[in-house]
């Protein structure tokens, strides 16, 4: 009963009898239906993927490692031998593979010799113990790969050039003819050379030496022009200002003017030196000389003489370095290549710009009446009767010396000694002075040849004559400290100006012993200069970095322009008017020279008379000054005490 019940799965198909009896034929093949048919492998040889034709049809469903050996097999025999089991024993030997090696040790004595494969066993027993296969583990770890980086570089392509020419028969012909001619010429030359060779040997060397220098000088001129062009380009705005700019605001300021800074001249090697002298060249309106040295006793060293042109503010035109600091210089009025220079060590020298070389063409030595103290001023004089050039110098040693350029040497003549006697002969305060009076500045009268003024360290100004070496014509008790500069007016024959470290600038009539004007500038005055265009205009520099410009015809009491032109703590040392252009140059104690343009108010001329009076300029200027003076002469007794 139970056997008749068929257990059917729920989803079994119900088939009819006929369907069940139907026969299906299946052909079984050895192909593995699951094996992939289209395996491809990368072939490194051909560098492409290739289909693999042989597909592995073997499918393993079950694997069990057996531990039975056939007794006749080699392995079984070997094991039997080890274990000393009689050959006939079991049909099959069960061996644990792992024991094999361990057992060898025990089996070794009895086993072996009988069997031919004992050799294997012998060698086996010699083997070292293998690590326990069940009791060790292998570990691997992988470190990070270093990230790959790409780096590339590109080289420049080889340089290329273009070349073009035309080849045709006449060109070729010409070339050949030319070449032949050349060859002939060179042949001739060689012939002549052979004959002259011996003589030329010496000359050849000379030419070799000379040629390069010639090349440089050729280039030098061009480079100089180029340099000027470049600086003119870079400082174009300054050049424009210099030429055309007029301060329009001057029209609204009646009494005052301004100074417009233009170029600044500076030379790296002269940075630590201070400007001790300035002088414009008469023949070249754009060229000026700068003397560099030091006023400080403790900081004496080398000096320098530089020539700058307005056309090139970046680099001096001429450079002379000197062993001692330059204290003063003067350029000959007619021969502007002659430059007289006074040094701190008391010597004077004359440089010639036309001659190359760093040395002066004349220099005074200790044998030839050299000063014993710094030379404070030099001044060219008119040529003497024998047409020799000569100049004067003044020094702290109290001498005024005339130097004459005779052939190869400087001949000196003492003109005056500012000694005690001189002062005594002058009477007055001579007795109070030290044994030697020290001259610091002088100036020669423009019309009266023999007349000149000497400023001294004691503050006195002496009016002297070249004719009397022991006597002063006059002595003015001008200042309380050293007189830094004394200068005759360029127009009026009687007027001169003096300035001093006692903060004052004074204007004098040399016939009157007291000053006509006194101005207090609130700082030691380094230098003062009359303008070349007006008898009443002068400018002074003070050590607080200011430039003061006065026009007495406009304002008798105050400067019409007072302007700081240098950085703080920079002392201005010297000032000079350009003889033609409305500019001034100012030197300071750091080796800088600044050029400044005077605004229209500072160079105003009397307008009403302009048209007619121009040719009589100087007389107008004299009259202008005279008018001022006449106002003062009568009341001068009242004016001066105020100051």
């Amino acid at each position, binding site marked *: 009963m139970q056997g008749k019940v068929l257990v059917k799965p729920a989803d079994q198909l119900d088939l009819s009898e006929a369907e069940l009896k139907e026969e299906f034929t299946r052909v079984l093949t050895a192909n593995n239906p699951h094996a992939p048919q289209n395996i491809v492998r990368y072939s490194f040889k051909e560098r492409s993927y290739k289909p693999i034709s042989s597909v592995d049809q073997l499918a393993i469903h079950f694997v069990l490692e057996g531990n039975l050996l056939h007794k006749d097999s080699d392995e079984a025999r070997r094991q039997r031998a080890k274990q000393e089991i009689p050959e006939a024993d079991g049909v099959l030997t069960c061996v644990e593979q792992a024991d094999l090696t361990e057992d060898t040790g025990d089996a070794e004595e009895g086993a072996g010799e009988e069997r031919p494969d004992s050799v294997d066993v012998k060698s086996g027993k010699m083997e070292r113990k293998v690590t326990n296969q069940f009791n060790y583990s292998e570990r691997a770890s992988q470190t990070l790969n270093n990230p790959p980086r790409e780096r590339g570089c590109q080289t420049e392509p080889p340089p290329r050039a273009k*070349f073009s*020419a035309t080849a045709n028969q006449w060109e*070729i012909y010409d070339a050949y003819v030319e070449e*032949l001619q050349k060859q002939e010429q060179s042949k001739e030359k060689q012939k002549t050379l052979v004959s002259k060779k011996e003589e030329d040997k010496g000359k050849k060397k000379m030419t070799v030496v000379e040629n390069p220098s010639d090349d440089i000088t050729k280039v030098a001129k061009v480079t100089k022009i180029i340099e000027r062009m470049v600086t003119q380009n870079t400082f174009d705005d300054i050049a424009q200002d210099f030429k055309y700019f007029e301060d329009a605001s001057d029209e609204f300021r009646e009494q005052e003017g301004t100074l417009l800074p233009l170029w600044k001249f500076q030379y790296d090697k002269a940075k630590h030196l201070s400007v001790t002298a300035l002088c414009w060249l008469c023949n070249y309106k754009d060229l000026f000389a700068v003397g560099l040295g030091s006023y400080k006793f403790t900081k004496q060293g080398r000096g320098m003489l530089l020539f700058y042109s307005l056309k090139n503010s970046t680099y001096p035109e001429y450079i002379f370095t000197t062993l001692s600091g330059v204290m003063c210089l003067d350029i000959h009025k007619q021969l502007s290549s002659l430059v007289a220079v006074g040094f701190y060590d008391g010597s004077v020298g004359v440089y010639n710009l036309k001659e190359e070389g760093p040395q002066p063409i004349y220099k005074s030595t200790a044998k030839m009446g050299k000063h014993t103290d710094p030379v404070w001023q030099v001044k060219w004089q008119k040529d003497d009767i024998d047409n020799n050039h000569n100049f004067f110098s003044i020094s702290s040693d109290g001498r005024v010396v005339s130097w004459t350029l005779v052939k190869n040497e400087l001949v000196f003549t003492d003109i005056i000694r500012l000694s005690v006697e001189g002062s005594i002969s002058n009477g007055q305060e001579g007795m109070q002075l030290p044994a030697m009076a020290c001259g610091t500045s002088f100036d020669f009268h423009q019309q009266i040849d023999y007349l000149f003024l000497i400023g001294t360290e004691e503050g006195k100004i002496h009016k002297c004559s070249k004719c009397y070496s022991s006597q002063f014509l006059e002595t003015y008790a001008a200042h309380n400290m050293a007189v830094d500069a004394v200068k005759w007016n360029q127009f009026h024959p009687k007027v001169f100006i003096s300035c001093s470290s006692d903060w004052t600038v004074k204007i004098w009539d040399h016939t009157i012993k007291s000053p006509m004007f006194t101005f207090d500038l609130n700082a030691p005055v380094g230098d003062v200069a009359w303008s070349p265009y007006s008898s009443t205009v002068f400018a002074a520099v003070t050590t607080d970095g200011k430039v003061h410009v006065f026009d007495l015809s406009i304002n008798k009491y105050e400067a019409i322009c007072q302007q700081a032109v240098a950085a703080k703590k920079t002392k201005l040392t010297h000032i000079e008017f350009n003889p033609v252009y409305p500019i001034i140059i100012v030197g300071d104690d750091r080796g800088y020279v600044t050029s400044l343009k005077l605004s229209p108010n500072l160079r105003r001329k009397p307008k009403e008379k302009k048209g007619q009076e121009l040719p009589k300029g100087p007389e107008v200027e004299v009259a202008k000054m005279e008018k001022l003076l006449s106002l003062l002469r009568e009341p001068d007794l009242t004016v001066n005490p105020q100051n």
Partner: protein
Amino acid sequence: MAETGDGKKEEADYKRLHSFPLIRHTDMPEEMRVETMELCVTACEKFATNNESAAKMIKESMDKKFGSSWHVVIGEGFGFEVTHEVKNLLYMFFGGSLAVCVWKCS
């Protein structure tokens, strides 16, 4: 200029005198220049009637000796403007009527 007899004589003279190689322009180094010049002379003499073969020979020899991409022009009259690698140009006359321009540009 001169009479016919003189003219012939001059012509002969001209041919004789103007047979040497005349370098017109080059920026090659000395050694290379000499070598190239000699090569040009050899080629032009070998193929006196066939400029093309001469040019071919020069070009191939230059390619072998100094690396590839040399160009050679040989002719009696031509104009040219070429870009060449610096230090790799030779322009010369030869034989009184031939102009040879050899340059490298790759």
